């Protein structure tokens, strides 16, 4: 769990500044690529892999994680001065568990089929290391607004990986995107077959491995971060 990279950001206190000042924009943007929670900080890999067979559940999952990360960051940051240090983990877990319960109930009420597909992985947002990692590394030492932005940024960074992996898996694995067929019939007639491997769990690991390879060969600073 290498959260050091972004923990350095957390040490400096911000003075009075606009809601979307340069620094805040950076807090929002950095996790999308340079400090991506999945591929650089190695947080939240668990669920990043399991829900990526199709794009739609992946998108919903990404949305859920973004909401939970952003609001738990906000809440913890608001009460950060009144949490005793020794029991902070329990306090964090309860706040996160409460938010996840809300997300779960909303999904069950409005998107039942997706909620069935995600099965236990909605509940597992509680132990998703991104949420806890950002609380520990950022929200405990920062003001509410930057914490909120940090949560959104990290949730979206996680979402990017999820959607990229899910896009490739659904395209190659079942020839569709968002459940809509995109591979034309004449290609199948010529002998094209869907790649069954993409539907199996290991494919997600291969794709993330390749993504990390590509990201690190593009940005040499990230090499040997772990």
């Amino acid at each position, binding site marked *: 769990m290498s959260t050091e990279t972004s923990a350095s950001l957390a040490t400096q206190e911000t003075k009075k500044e606009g809601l979307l000042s340069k620094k805040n924009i950076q807090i929002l943007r950095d996790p999308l690529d340079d400090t991506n929670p999945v591929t650089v900080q190695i947080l939240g890999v668990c*669920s990043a892999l399991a829900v990526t067979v199709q794009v739609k559940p992946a998108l919903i999952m990404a949305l859920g994680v973004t909401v939970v990360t952003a609001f738990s960051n906000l809440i913890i940051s608001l009460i950060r001065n009144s949490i005793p240090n020794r029991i902070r983990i329990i306090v964090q877990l309860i706040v996160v568990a409460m938010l996840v319960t809300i997300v779960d109930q909303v999904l069950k009420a409005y998107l039942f089929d997706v909620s069935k597909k995600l099965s236990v992985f909605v*509940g597992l947002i509680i132990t998703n290391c991104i949420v806890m990692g950002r609380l520990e590394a950022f929200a405990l030492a920062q003001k509410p607004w930057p914490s909120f932005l940090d949560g959104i940024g990290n949730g979206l960074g996680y979402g990017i990986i999820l959607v990229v992996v899910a896009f490739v898996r659904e395209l190659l694995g079942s020839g569709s995107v968002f459940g809509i067929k995109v591979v034309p019939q004449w290609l199948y007639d010529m002998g094209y077959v869907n790649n069954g491997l993409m539907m199996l769990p290991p494919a997600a690991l291969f794709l993330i*491995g390749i993504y990390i390879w590509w990201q690190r060969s593009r940005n040499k600073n990230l090499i040997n971060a772990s």
Partner: protein
Amino acid sequence: MQNLINILIKTIFVENVIFAFFLGMCSFLAVSKKIKTAFGLGLAVVFVMLLTTPLNYLILRYMLQEGALSWIHPSLASVDLTFLSFILFISTIAGAVQLVEMVVEKFMPGLYNSLGIFLPLITVNCSILGASLFMQEREYNFAETTAFSLGAGIGFFLAIVLLAAIRERLRYSNIPAPLQGLGIAMIITALMGLAFLSFSGIQL
């Protein structure tokens, strides 16, 4: 009895928590650089899993499910508290881990020293909470839950020790720089997952 053995073998090999569900990947990747530490973490996971999942089963069965509260008073029979399961499950796990840590420290200092920092970290290991949630979703009974949690723990143990063994050897191989560390660990896990897929041919 045969049913229980089936569940055990199925959760260890066919539906391994790591290779089929990716639960606990964070610590799986972070703590698999040396066999010795991987062994310690794996052991701790087996232990905590075997303790918390049956405990959560009892909580679910006697406190949360619809009709579960009827042992207090018949009028409570229609109360369904399953929406509280996330909060209660994670509290049980956090509490149990704390308790285990204290007991092990007091009575088995040798084991405590070898497990070290991994014990408290287990609280946020997805595989522990995942086992409890799978238990709830699949509606196991108590014996099945115990077999399932043992299998899931051993599956994690097996996977992390295997990966650590491979990564120790990797130090001597020539990997492209951008792929070193996390990248190659991912790809190796994928290859191991493919190997484990061969178990899915087992008829149970």
